[in-house]
């Protein structure tokens, strides 16, 4: 029997090559972020000097408060938090409900509905853009925050349902059967047994959904108009247009916007690969 550990320790040159390639990949991945943060710390006017400096001649953290006061960013942040929270909550609740039904509750036409649900994911958004726009306009929800989270209370999206359903399929059914024998209702089983067991998949979906809504600027761009309804992403975009001569300020706000995403990503990191792996997206 070949000892895998020994084999990998043995190939030192292979290991070094792997380190170099991966290190290079990580450098390329992170370099734009480095540039983002460095640009945000540059002195006034230094963002336009040539040649560009890898390390700014002096650091100016005061760019951050200056930028933050230039536009109603607290309001934009509030809008973003509200939309992200409500949309993610809706996604988690309704996607896991639907996923549970697709995985465990037999009903007529289940596979057809599952197929249709999945096919929503393949539809180019441009196709439904205009009808949806007109629908929200008709419902008088245009230029409010409603179009940004309301749709996600209706299943949250095919991909999320798929991810959670695949995960539930891998859970042993015996536990639920035992609960039935003990007299638990299906609702109780769903909330007390299935949901807690599905935590890794739900965490992964939560992170995906959070990142999507926090970062999304297409929907706000199309469905909102007034300054009062701007999210952080859209606010940053207009800020970028207005302050295009002061890149360091734009980059300061962009950096701040990135912080919550990175925090969530690091916190949920362990669920990320395992959530995808266990969901059966991989390996089936």
């Amino acid at each position: 029997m070949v000892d895998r550990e020994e084999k990998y320790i043995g190939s030192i040159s292979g290991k070094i090559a792997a380190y170099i390639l991966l290190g290079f990949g990580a450098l390329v991945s992170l370099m734009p972020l480095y540039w983002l943060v460095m640009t945000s710390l540059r002195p006034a006017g230094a963002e336009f000097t040539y040649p560009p400096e890898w390390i700014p001649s002096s650091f100016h953290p005061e760019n951050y408060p200056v930028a933050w006061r230039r536009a109603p960013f607290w309001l934009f942040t509030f809008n973003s938090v509200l939309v992200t929270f409500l949309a993610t909550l809706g996604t988690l609740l309704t996607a896991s409900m639907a996923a549970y039904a697709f995985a465990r509750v037999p009903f007529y036409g289940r596979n057809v509905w599952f197929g249709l649900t999945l096919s929503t994911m393949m539809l180019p958004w441009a196709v439904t853009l205009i009808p949806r726009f007109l629908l929200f306009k008709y419902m008088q929800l245009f230029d409010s925050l409603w179009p940004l989270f309301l749709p996600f209370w209706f299943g949250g999206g095919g991909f999320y349902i798929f991810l959670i359903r695949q995960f539930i399929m891998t859970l042993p059914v015996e536990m639920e059967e035992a609960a039935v024998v003990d007299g638990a209702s299906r609702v109780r089983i769903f909330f007390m047994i299935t949901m807690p067991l599905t935590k890794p998949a739900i965490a992964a979906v939560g992170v995906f959904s959070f990142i999507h809504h926090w970062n999304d600027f297409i929907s706000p761009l199309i469905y909102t108009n007034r300054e009062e309804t701007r999210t952080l992403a859209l606010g940053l975009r207009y800020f970028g247009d207005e302050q295009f001569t002061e890149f360091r300020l734009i980059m300061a706000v962009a950096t701040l916007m990135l912080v919550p995403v990175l925090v969530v990503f690091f916190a949920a990191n362990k669920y990320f690969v395992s959530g995808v792996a266990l969901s059966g997206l991989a390996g089936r």
Partner: protein
Amino acid sequence: MTSGEQHASFEQGRITEGPQGQIRTAGGEQRNRVFGLPLHILLIAPTFLIVFGLLVYPLGYAIVLSFSNKILTGSVPFKWVGLENYLDLVEAKSEMWTSVGVTLRFAIVGVLLEFIIGLSLALLLNREFRGRTWLRVGLLVPLMVPPLASGLIWRIMYDDSFGIFPHLVRTVGANPPIFLGDPDWALYAVVATEVWRSSPFMVLVLLAALQAQPVETIEAAEVDGASGWQVFRLITLPFITPVIIVALLFRTVDALRTFDLIFLLTAGGPGTTTEVISMFIYRWGFRHFKLGFTSAASILLMIATLIICIFYLRMLVVRQAEVQLTQE
């Protein structure tokens, strides 16, 4: 109500659906009702609504609109125009064909590079070594960056007068192109950004697939004296092929509808050299307000996407059939 529905019949899908799977709940059917509605209706209702609201209704509406001359501002009286929009679109000198070419180049070059990079990095990350978690985290970070922030920062990095990329090119002694302003370069500059942003998705999915692979099969092959390349080609690759197909499908569909990055980096310019199809649709719908024309374009896009999906799914089915044959 059939008798089957009076049981709480759990399914494992793959495993057994026998007498053991059918267990009567203590309170009978009543316990599976909430507010008098059967539970499965309640669980699935939101999804029914969304399938209707996001698929059936918009699709139907888009099809109907595509046969009309509807204009968002309503300045022109509404009229049915039959196939006119479609004919305008497929006309040889139509701008749509430029967009189609741009979209195809964007999608093919982008997805191919993402796949090669993603697979190599996933294979490297699948080994045991110190610092693996940190490298993985570092590699996945671009996935998290708001498109807006990446659009802005890449625009700055590409900028001709103070960007870092032209500077790096000059450092090695070459004359840099105006990356985002040169019709020959703009599309590939955008592709580079897209590859930076989306390769981590490939890494994530393929790494998950690699880690699901049972160690025993690899060990057995190694005992039999297989080389690293043989193990990869004959064992690992067949194992992850279905996932590769799914990942390619996801990324291709996504690349075909890319909007945000192009909107932020070049807005389709210079000229229309980076105007992908969704940019084309956005321009005609929300700049010129020609909703009928735009709907026709989006229906064509959907049909094209559908054909590509079917192509991939067929590959998947053929692949699974092959696996079943070898197992028998």
